[in-house]
């Protein structure tokens, strides 16, 4: 047991003293998560608008005055259709609005007034949302509500302001945990291979199983500390992410999951000969797992084949479980599925990696 603790201490010390690695790990857990949370926003914001107005301009100006910050930029007026088209093709303008000359007359006479929109839909998500905003503006403008007396009370649960940083930051943290747990565990073994200290390790008067376990546990501890720092500083500190479940449950799930990833790390360590191969193999193995397990898109929205395949991916349970803890505030009993998935699949993976690297001892 004391040998076990000594190995853990040695690995933690070694980690703290390899500054390059330390910096990369710290960067990943703080700045990287921050950039992802801050940078990616799929909402239609600050959309550029170009206008051609052939109508007298009373109604059209009223409508245009409703297009404002934060969704839209100040409309730019164009003299002719060609100039507007050119601006759209050059990606200067995303939404072009054309008011025909008879627009106002038709509006007053109740004779099918038509508003022409030209949208650059290369960014399809934004252009779809921009179209929706304009529809809403028109609805409010014409007081459609008086025609259809209905009130839709929409409650967006867990994230009422649809903040993208909540989602992106958490998704990025989960990716970082996955990748780092794999790379760090694999690196801890492969470093010994690379530096030639592997034989010294074999000579140690300690059981091989204890060495493997201690080494993996030390890396799991590093990942857990990193996660804790990230949740505390970036998620709670900067993004003010609400947590509807309990943090302890998330950390527990992360703990089991880190062992799962460590299992994959052990497998990689048994195959790879140097750190470079570790890095490449980890990315090759983990990236597909990560993306097809619902990090960016819920699993049920993906291709049915992928959906079935993801049943055997422990990441699927981890990602869904973590999102449920943070956003949905699921009760502990309802989380059993995710815990079971991570523990069972993780157990198998860790056992396999353990045996694979054990053969090298």
């Amino acid at each position, binding site marked *: 047991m004391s040998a076990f603790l000594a190995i853990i201490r040695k690995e933690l010390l070694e980690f703290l003293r390899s500054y390059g690695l330390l910096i990369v790990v710290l960067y990943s857990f703080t700045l990287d998560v921050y950039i992802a949370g801050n940078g990616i926003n799929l909402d239609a914001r600050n959309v550029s608008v170009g206008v051609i107005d052939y109508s007298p301009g009373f109604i059209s100006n009223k409508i245009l005055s409703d297009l404002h910050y934060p969704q839209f930029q100040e409309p730019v007026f164009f003299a002719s259709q060609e100039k507007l088209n050119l601006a759209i093709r050059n990606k200067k303008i995303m939404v072009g609005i054309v008011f025909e000359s008879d627009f106002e007359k038709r509006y007053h006479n109740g004779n099918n007034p038509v508003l022409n929109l*030209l949208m650059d839909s290369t960014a399809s998500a934004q252009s779809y949302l921009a179209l929706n905003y304009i529809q809403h503006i028109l609805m409010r403008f014409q007081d459609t509500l008086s025609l259809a007396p209905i009130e839709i009370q929409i409650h967006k649960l867990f994230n009422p302001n649809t903040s993208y940083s909540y989602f992106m930051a958490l998704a990025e943290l989960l990716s970082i945990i996955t990748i780092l747990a794999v790379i760090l565990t694999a690196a801890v073994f492969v470093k010994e291979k690379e530096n030639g200290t592997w034989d010294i390790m074999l000579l140690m008067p300690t059981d091989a199983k204890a060495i493997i376990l201690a080494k993996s546990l030390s890396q799991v501890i590093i990942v857990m500390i990193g996660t804790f720092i990230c949740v505390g500083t970036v998620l709670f500190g900067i993004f003010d992410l609400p947590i509807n479940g309990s943090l302890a449950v998330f950390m527990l799930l992360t703990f089991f999951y880190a062992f799962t990833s460590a299992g994959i790390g052990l497998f990689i360590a048994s195959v790879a000969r140097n750190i470079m191969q570790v890095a490449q193999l980890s990315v090759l193995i983990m990236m597909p797992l990560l993306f097809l397990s619902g990090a960016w898109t819920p699993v049920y929205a993906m291709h049915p084949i992928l959906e079935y395949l993801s049943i055997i991916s422990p990441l699927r349970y981890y990602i869904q479980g973590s999102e449920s803890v943070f956003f949905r505030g699921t009760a502990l009993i309802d989380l059993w599925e995710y815990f079971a998935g991570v523990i069972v699949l993780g157990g198998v993976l860790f056992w396999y990696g353990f045996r694979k690297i054990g053969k090298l001892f």
Partner: protein
Amino acid sequence: MRIGVIRAYCKKELLDIYRSKLILMVYIMPSMILILFGYGIKLEVTHIRTLIIDNDQSKASYDLVSAFEHSKYFNSEVKNLSENRALNLIKQDKKDLIIIIPEEFGKHLLKGLKASVGVYIDGSFPSRAKTTENYVDGVIYDAIMKRSGSETESRALITINARNLFNQSLRDEDMIVPGLIGLVLLVVPAISSALLIVKEKENGTIFNFYSSPVKKSEFLAAKLLSVLLLHVINIFILFLWAIYLFELPFRGSFLLYTFSSFIYIIISLSIGLLVSIVTSSQIVAYVLTLIITIIPGFLYSGMLMPISSMEGESVIEAHIYPVMYYTHILYDVFLVGDGLSASKNLLYLLILVGYATILLTVGSLLLKKRIA
């Protein structure tokens, strides 16, 4: 520069790449990233798991329910549950959307009083929540208007005649794949060229170069040419994936696509060269390259956010990185098809050429043929 030396050196590099299995990364990683993200990012929302609780059971509420059942966006199920039980289903991630039609809904509508509908959306995935909200709004207003709006009233409403240029059916693939090509061709060549030089540093074989009569220009030319040759094939592989797997239209000129991609790969290789000058171990070079290429590659490709919508310092940053210029041309050749007749494409192509020249010159000036 002696052609014979370069050729021999190139041959050595190609063999090295082949035997050290780096070749796997050169050919697997680009296709892998393209396919993963192409399939893994779905912004289009369909099959929303919907639960409708109809407490009214009137003609009006049936109409509303059937409007949801006939929409391809919703997988709806009608059940009578208490509100709390229903909300628990969202918490357990079994449903995404709950619609509650209150009692007296039909009566209120008939009398012209204000009727209300309760809608609960799972907000965990923000982009999906937003789109769901819009769908729900649309379906409900539509259903109600059909019931109550008379002919003249609906004729008086402004209808929107929207033309989606370049991506008529708003396909996710059309939006993501060109941006991904821009990302992949920035990241992977940079990594391979960085590794190729740093590996020699790490293994100490760089001294062969320091002490041999090979000139710096020959060394560089050989290193970069060998990776360039391998990656040029990727231009075509990625093109084939885009056209046949993701079924993108291709409206521009293939020559422009090939040429601009070629220049862009040179830029990426030069970035790798710069990284290899400042680092001395492979793993650091690898991580550093990933950090400086992936994030700008994602953010400034216009794939997730149009450049015209950016504000403040991100506008400046977007113009500093070469990504934006290349993806602009990419979106043009795939979706728009103006080619070089649009002056902006020509300008951006020239900017790319300028980038390549500057980065390559700086890189070759900084590379020293001695121990620093």
